[in-house]
């Protein structure tokens, strides 16, 4: 599951990856014609809209790409850097950049690209941008208030606008297509030519068909999560047998024994977990099973992950999902926590054991009833470790 950094690709290898990504980036920018200021500013004077076409197509493609990766459970968006929103610095900084664009004819990425093929104006632009950074750094106390004003956190645009994600994606794609059509007309008028075809070209048709297939496939292929939830819901009998159970006695014994291999994967709600904490417990939710960072906990070797919920059915459903996702060392508490409370914590000592085996069980449960409350009380002091999610650091 992505992102692959930092656990599959280490920090140092990441720099090598950065170099290769940069090579691709520079190559595409140069091939698209972003290495000349004349082509770049054409956007603002209506004679060449290459920038808009490339930029909008790239943005929409990446948006779809990232949504598809999320859809099929290949990317945990909680770990991806989402540019934070600082309203005023974004607007003022953006307008200053816009002015820099029409005065200088480049933006930072394209200036580096153009400088690489020998454009002297681009080299001067790069020099200028270093000076601009220095001005900002030296005068930082003056700009600090503006820099930090209007902090909204890191929301998604569809959340800010109060739209469902799919509606926003549709609107953005529609705006892009309308823009592609409109700019061919503007371009033709400015350059006094007949409008060039824009959609009914080979590339245009291919891109449109692929885009439509991808968009429609979202309706046919459920997300990875929906798929597993559906699958486990419909095989409560057969599939559930695959996960082995742990009897309440074994569970109690391991708790008393302070077995370090035992990990209680606690699916109770926060209030229930607080009222009766368990040793080695990690709070967990169904969502966590589909997130990269919490899931890593289940993959640790040498631990027995016991899924805990009030009833066994819930436990088995969750455990089956985890099993489908490829996690092996998972067991469920037989009868759920309700059975554990009834049979162990509230063990009825007035019962009279009938057989020899019952006598052993009686003795054990009576001991567990006596000693476990102390173990549970002790674990209340050592609150469960909650792993904090660390997003990738990004931005400029």
């Amino acid at each position, binding site marked *: 599951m992505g992102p692959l950094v930092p656990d599959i690709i280490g920090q140092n290898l990441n720099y090598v990856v950065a170099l290769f990504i940069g090579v691709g980036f520079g190559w595409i920018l140069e091939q698209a014609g972003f290495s000349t200021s004349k082509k770049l500013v054409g956007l603002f004077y209506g004679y060449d809209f290459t920038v808009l076409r490339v930029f909008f197509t790239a943005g929409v493609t990446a948006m779809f790409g990232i949504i598809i990766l999320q859809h099929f459970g290949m990317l945990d968006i909680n770990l991806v850097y989402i540019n934070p929103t600082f309203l005023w610095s974004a607007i003022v900084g953006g307008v200053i950049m816009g002015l820099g664009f029409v005065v200088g004819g480049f933006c930072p990425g394209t200036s580096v690209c153009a400088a690489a093929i020998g454009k002297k104006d681009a080299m001067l632009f790069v020099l200028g941008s270093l000076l601009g950074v*220095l001005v900002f750094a030296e005068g930082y106390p003056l700009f600090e208030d503006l820099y930090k004003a209007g902090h909204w956190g890191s929301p998604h645009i569809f959340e800010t606008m109060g739209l469902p994600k799919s509606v926003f994606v549709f609107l953005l794609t529609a705006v892009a297509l309308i823009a592609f059509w409109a700019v061919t007309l503007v371009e033709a008028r400015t350059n006094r030519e007949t409008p060039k075809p824009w959609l009914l070209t080979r590339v245009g048709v291919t891109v449109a068909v692929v885009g439509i297939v991808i968009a429609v496939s979202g309706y046919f292929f459920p997300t990875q999560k929906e798929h597993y939830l559906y699958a486990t819901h419909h095989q409560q009998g057969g599939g559930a047998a695959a996960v082995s159970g742990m009897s309440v006695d074994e569970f109690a014994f391991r708790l008393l024994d302070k077995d370090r291999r035992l990990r209680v994967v606690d699916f109770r709600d926060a209030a229930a977990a607080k009222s009766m904490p368990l040793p080695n417990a990690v709070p967990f939710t169904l969502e966590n099973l589909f997130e990269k960072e919490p899931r890593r906990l289940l993959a640790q070797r040498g631990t027995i992950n016991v899924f805990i919920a009030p009833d066994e059915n819930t436990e088995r459903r969750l455990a089956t999902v985890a099993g489908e996702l490829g996690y092996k060392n998972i067991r469920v508490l037989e009868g759920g926590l309700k059975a554990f409370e009834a049979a162990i914590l509230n063990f009825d000592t007035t019962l009279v054991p009938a057989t020899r085996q019952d006598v052993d069980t009686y003795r054990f449960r009576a001991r567990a009833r006596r000693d476990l409350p102390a173990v549970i009380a002790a674990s209340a002091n050592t609150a469960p470790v909650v792993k904090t999610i660390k997003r990738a650091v990004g931005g400029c």
Partner: protein
Amino acid sequence: MTPKPYMNPYLAGVLLGLLLTATVYITGRGLGASGAMKSAAVATVETVAPSHASGTPYYREYQEEHPEGALKNWLVFEVIGVVIGAFLSGLLSNRLSFKLEHGPRTTRNIRIAGAIFGGALFGFGAQLGRGCTSGAALSGMGVLSTGGIITMMAIFGGAYAFAYFFRKLWV
């Protein structure tokens, strides 16, 4: 040799979008450019005026974020890659040449001043706006970030608003 024609813009856009998707999948972050200029600027100050750098909070903060040196930054490596990639592309398409491009109605000196001043504005604005056209606008659009999309609209909106006043530079 005559330069080869440029790539179809929609094809270039799809390739760039796929590259950005791959970047997010592999590294959890997007593309960028102005961040490397910040690294270079900070590294320059550290070399030229080390006492000034260690005495100013802005540089100190950056040093704390980059304990292994200002240049050991993801974007610095990426931008070195951009230089290599663009150079190879220019080489293969016969577009390598030392020249100063300027509009038909302007002079070399005005273009030189414009490039430096425009670069300075962009460098400054990218610091204030936390990213440029690559890091904030394009990558922000890919991950549907509100901040990135506001920055994008401000950049292009601002450029259109000012374009009329600088038309003699270009057309």
